[in-house]
């Protein structure tokens, strides 16, 4: 439990004047979103969300526009107060924090990147990045040094003294990223940070971001509506719909076993070659009957976490099936050409 940096339990957010009443009615009568809107004219923003994020994980939240992603992430640093439920970050109950403690948490431990940048228009890029340090009363020389470093992480050297409106949208987004990194927080909250970037820079930043957070052991909640992005960087993905989390799982689980049609629609057309490992398509080595005229002696071997793309590369070079080994090097399964093709074709075949 101690390694869980973020813990949410049955969190609800209902917007509107009568949110308390609406919450009560929901608990007692189990109303749905439309009824709540009609009876109390309240919008259900977040409905009964629970999840935990362990240290060092990148947790992606996906969902259509208006599904409540931004609302959810704002709960994690209490920019929005939940109507019900508990939220713990770094083992501290967020709703129980005093104002000073909350400010301390936000300044030191939780960095945030906004969908709409939210840079201060009257301050230079450098001063924007230095803002979280300024709040913590870091002296100017020191904070400029740190901010300079953060800016170089996102390739913005030389733009320190510009004003935000003199930068392109993508550059502004990177300033936002640098600002979130500047105070070196344990937790990063990212609300579609890369959506305004061009594909090349986005790709580069994604890789950079993953390696950065992995080496620095940062815990990240990452919102995106791009499944490719979620799969590329997410350790786990949560799919959100109408304020509810419908499914949480690794990219592979989400693609292979979508919980319902909504998720299935989402993952349709995603190339699973990189995603699916040998482990999930192989046949047990015991149940495999070796066809006549073939000897397994020369068959190539591959680790169980090899992905399909790699398996194809191996398979092209030989007519033989591939033997799959586990981490200890023990043979545990076999992938024949037929199995491989079925695996590529996709789920629902068995």
């Amino acid at each position, binding site marked *: 439990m101690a390694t869980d940096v973020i813990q949410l339990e049955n969190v609800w957010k209902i917007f509107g004047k009568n949110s308390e009443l609406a919450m009560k009615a929901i608990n007692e009568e189990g109303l749905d979103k439309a009824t709540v809107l009609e009876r109390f004219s309240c919008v259900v923003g977040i409905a009964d969300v629970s999840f935990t994020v362990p240290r060092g994980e990148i947790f992606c939240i996906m969902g259509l526009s208006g599904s409540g992603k931004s609302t959810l992430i704002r709960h994690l640093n209490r920019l929005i107060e939940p109507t019900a439920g508990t939220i713990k970050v770094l083992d501290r109950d967020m709703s129980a924090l005093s104002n000073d403690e909350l*400010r301390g948490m936000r*300044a030191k431990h939780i960095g945030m990147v906004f969908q709409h940048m939210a840079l201060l228009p*009257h301050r230079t890029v450098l001063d924007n990045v230095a803002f979280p340090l300024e709040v913590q009363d870091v002296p100017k020389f020191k904070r400029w040094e740190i901010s300079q470093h953060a800016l170089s992480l996102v390739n913005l050297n030389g733009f320190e003294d510009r004003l935000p409106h003199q930068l392109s949208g993508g550059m502004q987004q990177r300033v936002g990223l640098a600002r979130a990194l500047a105070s070196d927080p344990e937790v990063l909250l990212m609300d579609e940070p890369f959506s305004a970037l061009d594909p090349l820079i986005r790709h580069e930043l994604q890789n950079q971001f993953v390696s950065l957070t992995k080496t620095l052991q940062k815990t990240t909640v990452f919102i995106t509506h791009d499944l490719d992005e979620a799969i590329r960087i997410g350790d786990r993905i949560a799919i959100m719909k109408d304020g509810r989390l419908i499914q949480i799982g690794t990219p592979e689980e989400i693609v292979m076993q979508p919980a319902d049609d909504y998720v299935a629609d989402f993952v349709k057309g995603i190339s699973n070659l990189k995603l699916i490992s040998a482990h999930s398509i192989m046949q047990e080595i015991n149940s495999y009957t070796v066809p006549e005229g073939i000897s397994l002696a020369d068959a190539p071997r591959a680790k169980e976490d090899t992905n399909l793309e790699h398996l194809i590369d191996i398979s092209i070079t030989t007519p033989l099936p591939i033997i799959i080994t586990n981490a200890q090097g023990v043979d545990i399964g076999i992938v024949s050409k037929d199995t491989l093709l079925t695996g590529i074709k996709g789920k629902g075949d068995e």
Partner: protein
Amino acid sequence: MNNTTIKANVSDDSSMQHAQAESVHRFTERQGEYYSAQFEKIQSSNRLTVTFNPKAALFGPCWAAARNIWGFFWLSTFALLFSLVQLGRGLWGELGADKLAQAARLSDKSQEMAVKAQSALEAGAANAAALLRNSENLQRAADNALAAANEAAQGAEQLVIWGSVFLILVILIQGFIANLVYEKKYCQWRINNSEKSGFSYPNLLLGLAMLTMILPLMLYRFTAAKPVEWLTAFPANKAIFNSTSSWLDKAFDAIALQGAGFFDGITYSIRILLDGLEVVLVDTPWPVTTLVILFMAWRLAGPRVAIFTIAALSYLAFLGYWEKSMATIALLGAAATLCVLVGVPLGIVCAKNRTVDSIARPVLDFMQTMPAFVYLIPIIAFFGTGKPPGILATIIFGMPPVVRLTALGIKQVPPSIVEGALAFGCSRRKLLLDVEIPLAMTNIMAGINQTILMCLSMVVIASLIGAEGLGTDVLMALQFAAKGQGLLAGLAILFCAMIIDRIVQGCVKPTGRPAG
């Protein structure tokens, strides 16, 4: 209820149309069929559509009342009244009745005079000729009056014609614009469902009640030759007025007596500020003051303003207004400083606190619209005459813009930027000082500028209660109708205003930034 709910149809397109129609039905409550057809017609064309609503045409005000469109109701009522009054005057109004009476009176007099003249003539009196001339004159006046009466009677016909033409026009216009207006109302209703607009009997009754109040009284007033007196003049009670005003007098006296210490304190503190400013501006040798002003103009607002400032200052100096201008600027400076010191914080509080805002708003309106002469009276009662009361009067008039614009500026700071700052642990105080005020600065400076100019425009009025300066010169000129002197002093005030305005605007530029 003839309200029929329409089931969504199979085809997408027609179901959309049905949804539209259904929403119109819900909006109108009655005659949904008719209005949905009319609205569709209006919404299908980008130009002005010709639709005619016979009910609205015939029963204009009643229709509007029942449909809760009160703007239409009043316009239509007044148009109707106007045409009916013309008609009524033409038909029943005894037009020229007074002229006719006058003619009869005059001709009686002339007859009398003629008789007198006759007898005088017979008696051989000397004044007979004069009397005769008199009688003739009277007769001519009577004839004129008769002609006027005839003309007026003929005017009656014209009134009838114009009245009916106007009435028909009103009916036609009503009919043609009713559906357009109603469609606009429908669009508003779509945004805000709470705005009721369907057919409503209570509203109809209310409208009818108002019509029965208004129409007969108006018609009676304009057609009767001599309407009863209580209609033409409000039966006011002089006693109420007298007792209230004398009660107010006593109240003022009591407050002045009770709060003497308080009022003196205010006067005293204003005087300290003013004295400080006057010493600096008036007693400093003029070359020093000129140099400082010029330097400020040049650095803050550029060479062009500096040249203008030289010209303006020479005008003031050579026409002998130097000292008075400096006194005026000191007065103004004190007033403007106090306005800003009180107004900016007040504006910030207004932006943050609903209650304060809802109290301050009407007070500010009051301060700005109340004629200055009215609050000069209590100011004299409480603070006496002289410069400090003059400054107070100036503050009352000059403060509203800076409060309003500060509040506006703070409110206009984008919430996303505020959120961004808060997310990094910014405290409320830092948020205000380092985010909100800098972002609202353009607005605040505009407010300060406005305030300064408003204060300047009060200079003349403040001089009425003894705040000496350029205003006094204008006042004197006014008293003695000295045109030249008045114009010169007025120009001097204008130049003071322009110098200050340019320099303050120059201050705004460095912090100003392109919006967005």
